[in-house]
């Protein structure tokens, strides 16, 4: 398979939406609908600090880089890592302007607490794949920092998870190429969706318009 051209890249953060609801992802990324709600506003506020690309700190053997732009042309995804920690490690790679060898560990900041679904984990894994593709080095682990519980959860980047991310990226590109907004199952998750007013999930389970027109006209 040939690599994606930069103009075809999709947003890596979309993996999260896609995992939550494929329709929500399509509404945001294909149809360009966006509605801010409390959750997204809080999220972006939290990110302001983590995302500042001009903060670069070094403590002991670890270099902290914030707001690092990343991409993978193989997956056709592009995005920004909140924080990447470069740990000095003999198995690592040399970095421009630094002595020694380093291994990157992506850290993603999340409002709230660990979720039941895999959306956060897959986003992190996608970041890890990007870093591997860009730096030509293994990225065996990453971390999710949850603001609400103020705790960091270490995640092992397994081959299985990576395969799942690649498969997801492929599906996203397939929908995008077809400009297709899927009709997917509605459920409890619709209640917390910021696009509820645009998606109108109830609409997907309604009677057909043909039968509605017929019924009303007969009255």
């Amino acid at each position, binding site marked *: 398979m040939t690599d994606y051209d930069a103009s075809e890249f999709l947003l890596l953060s979309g993996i999260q939406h896609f995992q939550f609801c494929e329709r929500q992802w399509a509404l945001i990324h*294909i*149809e*360009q*609908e966006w509605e801010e709600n409390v959750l997204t506003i809080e999220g972006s506020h939290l990110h302001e600090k983590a995302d500042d690309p001009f903060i670069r700190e070094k403590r002991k053997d670890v270099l902290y880089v914030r707001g690092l732009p990343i991409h993978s042309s193989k997956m056709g995804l592009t995005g920004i890592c909140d924080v990447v920690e470069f740990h000095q490690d003999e198995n690592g790679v040399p970095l421009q302007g630094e002595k020694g060898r380093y291994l990157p560990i992506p850290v993603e900041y999340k409002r709230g607490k660990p979720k039941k679904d895999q959306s956060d984990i897959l986003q992190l894994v996608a970041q890890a794949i990007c870093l591997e593709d860009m730096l030509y080095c293994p990225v065996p682990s990453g971390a999710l920092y949850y603001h609400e519980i103020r705790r960091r959860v270490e995640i092992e980047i397994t081959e299985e998870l990576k395969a799942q991310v690649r498969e997801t990226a492929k599906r996203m590109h397939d929908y995008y190429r077809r*400009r297709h*907004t899927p*009709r997917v199952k509605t459920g409890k998750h619709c209640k917390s969706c910021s696009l509820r*007013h*645009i998606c*109108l999930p*109830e*609409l*997907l389970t*309604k009677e*057909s*318009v*043909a039968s*509605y*027109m017929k019924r*009303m*006209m007969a*009255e």
Partner: protein
Amino acid sequence: MKKLLTTLYITMPDAYLALKGENVSIIKDDESIGRVPLHNLEGICTFGRQGASPALMAACIERDIAITFLTTNGRLRGRVIGPSNGNVVLRKTQYRISDDEKKSAEIARHFLVGKLYNSKWTLERMTRDHGLRIDVEKFKKTSTYLTESMNQLMSIDDLEILRGVEGNAASAYFSLMDDMILQQKEDFFFKGRNRRPPLDNVNALLSLIYTLLATDVGAALEAVGLDAYVGFLHRDRPGRMSLALDMMEELRSVCADRFVLSLINKKQVQASDFVKKESGAVLMTDEARKKIFELWHNKKDEKITHPFLKEKISWGLVPHAQAMLLARFLRGDLDAYPAFFWK
């Protein structure tokens, strides 16, 4: 469903609108004479000559507040639209269908079925509420005719024939407009539609309310990412919001005509609210307009149950709901466009 916010109407011809913090500041003779917070606004309609500051326009674009500029007589001069509704795919689908007469007719048909249904029930409501004052038999006869025309529409897929059936039905309905005026008959009568300029009080009222409705429908269409200027029933004409006029067909009788009739029948407007110019044109006084906007606003706050969505929404959100349903059909979520039926 989203919440209905307020529309700010500026009727003072000399008012200038500016941004002051998070507010619209209304300025007259270099002095601020009022302020309205942006956060509870849905739209701004100004009948002034002076316009608005670029900073205010930018703030409104950011917040999805539609600014509409009208002449002091209520003719549309223009609207400010932001780049946020950037769904090219949806609009291209709309254009493709608009170029295809057969497919256009399928949507146009539903607009018109809605129009005749709602006109019919406007007449039926009249016989129920004012049976003693009107010629019920005449009303029933026209109502039956409207039902027949409506059913006929469903099997027509040619725009010209659709327009023909609709035209006859519309004139049958309008022939009863004068019968529905039950008060102040010497000052308010209806002998037929005229405009640019309207030549009698009733036509002046209809023109104003149709403009307000078209503005609302146009803004609703743009807000869901559709192009208000590219229609299915109304063909393209430079500067005409054809799609807004298409979608308005369903709402004319229930939203506009009934509102105008109630203004007259409840004596909320009087002969003194109108001025007849030498040319025969009828103008409305500023105070009259102000009064009418307020009543129009109250009307928009009234709640109904949307027949297809089965959700309680305010009248003011009906254009938004219909615009969204049309977009949903164009995107392939619905099998057709569900007309708005009122009873």
